[in-house]
């Protein structure tokens, strides 16, 4: 009984992690149709921000939750100005350029901080279910995933900025004709997506080591999740995370973490064969 409870908790926390690491990518891809291959490195920068700030004596929660989104959001603004802006509408070129950015960020961070694993230990301690210890931080991640999803939904649904963003996403020309500057909307959206990725990096820093190449561990999963989700970015990401996170964690339990990821990939590829536009290309189309 307690074993089942622990497995269920692990599955939920796997789903939550997937939601957290995919959300920034989903915003950028869903709103702007820009595939940001440097997403993993944005996570990595968030992680480094958290670890370095904590190491300098900053309060842990500020280091994990406040500084990473701010720093990576600023990086996002710079990247949008210098690189992404030149390549709008050239989807493949954007992909290649952000891949270059990803390599450059890995190289740059390796030069600055070396190739060793750093990290912060998970705060909040643990509690006991039967014979098992469960980390409270896992529960905190689940809460964070819910809060972030609700926040993204609320911003898009109820704020004027969200309205402009959704309008520009649906029809950039019409939005432009009505006096909205699509350029500015894109810039803000990209920065917001980058900030979300940075926050994700801060959130996962305590559960995964922080290394220059940590992004590569998450990027594949994040991409597959967003693409399996399909056009409706929030609903798609949540449903795909739910499905793939369950597959990933269940197979990890039954076999090894590597086979968990292999199972995730195979399920996703077969699913895309059946639903080429992703889950929300067929179901829940009108959702956000």
């Amino acid at each position, binding site marked *: 009984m307690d074993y089942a409870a622990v497995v269920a908790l692990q599955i939920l926390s796997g789903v939550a992690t997937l939601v957290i690491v995919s959300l920034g990518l989903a915003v950028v891809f869903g709103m702007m149709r820009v*595939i940001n291959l440097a997403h993993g490195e944005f996570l990595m920068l968030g992680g480094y921000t958290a670890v370095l700030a904590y190491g300098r004596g900053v309060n842990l929660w500020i280091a994990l939750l406040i500084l990473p989104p701010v720093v990576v959001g600023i990086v996002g603004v710079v990247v949008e100005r210098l*690189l992404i802006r*030149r*390549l709008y509408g*050239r*989807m*493949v*070129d954007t*992909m*290649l*350029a952000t*891949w*270059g*950015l*990803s*390599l*450059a*960020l*890995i*190289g*740059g961070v*390796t*030069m600055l901080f070396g190739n060793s694993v750093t990290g912060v230990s998970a705060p909040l301690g643990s509690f006991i279910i039967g014979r098992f210890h469960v980390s409270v931080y896992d529960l905190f991640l689940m809460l964070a995933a819910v809060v972030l999803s609700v926040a993204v939904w609320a911003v898009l649904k109820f704020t004027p900025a969200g309205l402009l963003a959704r309008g520009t996403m649906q029809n950039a020309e019409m939005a432009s004709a009505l006096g909205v500057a699509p350029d500015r909307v894109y810039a803000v959206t990209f920065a917001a997506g980058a900030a979300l990725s940075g926050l994700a990096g801060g959130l996962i820093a305590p559960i995964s080591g922080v290394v220059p190449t940590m992004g*590569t561990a998450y990027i*594949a999963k994040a*991409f*597959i999740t967003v*693409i399996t989700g399909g056009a409706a970015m929030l609903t798609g990401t949540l449903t795909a995370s739910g499905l793939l996170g369950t597959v990933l964690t269940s197979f990890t339990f039954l076999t*090894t973490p*590597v086979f968990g*990821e*292999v199972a995730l*990939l195979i399920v996703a*590829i*077969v699913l*895309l*064969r*059946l639903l*080429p536009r992703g889950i929300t290309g067929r179901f829940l189309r009108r959702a956000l």
Partner: protein
Amino acid sequence: MAPGARTGLEIGAAVIVAAVAAVYLPQVLELFSLINATVWVSMAVLALSLGLVWGFGGILCFGQTAFFGLGGYTYAVASINFGDTTWAVPLALLMPTLLAAALGYLMFYGRISDVYMGVITLTTTLILFKFASSTAGDEWNIGEAPLGGFNGIPATPPLNFPLAPDQQLVPEQIFAVAVLCLVACYAIAKLVLRTRFGRVCVAIKENELRAELLGYDVRLHKLVMFALAGMMAGLAGVLFANCVFVSPTMFSLSYAGQVIIWVLVGGIGTLVGPVIGCVLVQMLTTYAGTLSWIDPNLLLGLVFMAAVVAVPKGLLPTASGLLARLTGRAQL
């Protein structure tokens, strides 16, 4: 000039250049440089395979290294088990072809758009990278061959003469074989593009919908093209395994990225371009490795971004365009 004659001339020129290289270079290069040159030639085969599938098939494959690595691993495992490389090589060509066909079936028959295709192929190679890295320990032996986890298989045997396991090729001969393979792949690609099948592939790349409405089976053509390029990448893996050894690095993100850089720098839509791009970027990488003040990844990333923004068509088309303008002739 008739197109057929031109293809013949180009293949002839490639054969002559290759013959000179295969005979002359082993005499002047030291052993270390010669082995390095063999690595570059194997990489050039990989670049050529991506240049074919991306530039002429219009298939954006970010994970060409999946087939490269699988070819290398199959070769290593099979030749250790057989004690002879004669049958290991065809097997090492077959496995990547099958993987490419299976992956291609899921992607093309699912009508997945090119961007998603890039992500799926990239993910495939990353998963193989993780899988190969986690195979340390005795439970991961295939027959007599230990997969060796992150260290790979250092004891990858070199090629031997067909059916003569005792007569292993020396590095000079392996270099010649590699150059021969490069030229053969180039000639095969050129000839395939001259056939009806190749022309339909190019037509699909130019306008998929129109080709489909004209009655061509887009999915099947793409599948065959993808499998052919997968086989070439597998051959590149065999050559690479012969001069270095197989390890999970063959599947890694940095290799997968480099192949794209080579093709992009050299020029999409040409076959010589990727080979030139490969050699130039390799020279740059080797040079960057000797610099202590800059990380090679950083330099590569910057070159990559600059190439996308500044010369999106690649060096060879840009250069031939410039040349044509300078000499006042119509573009080739």
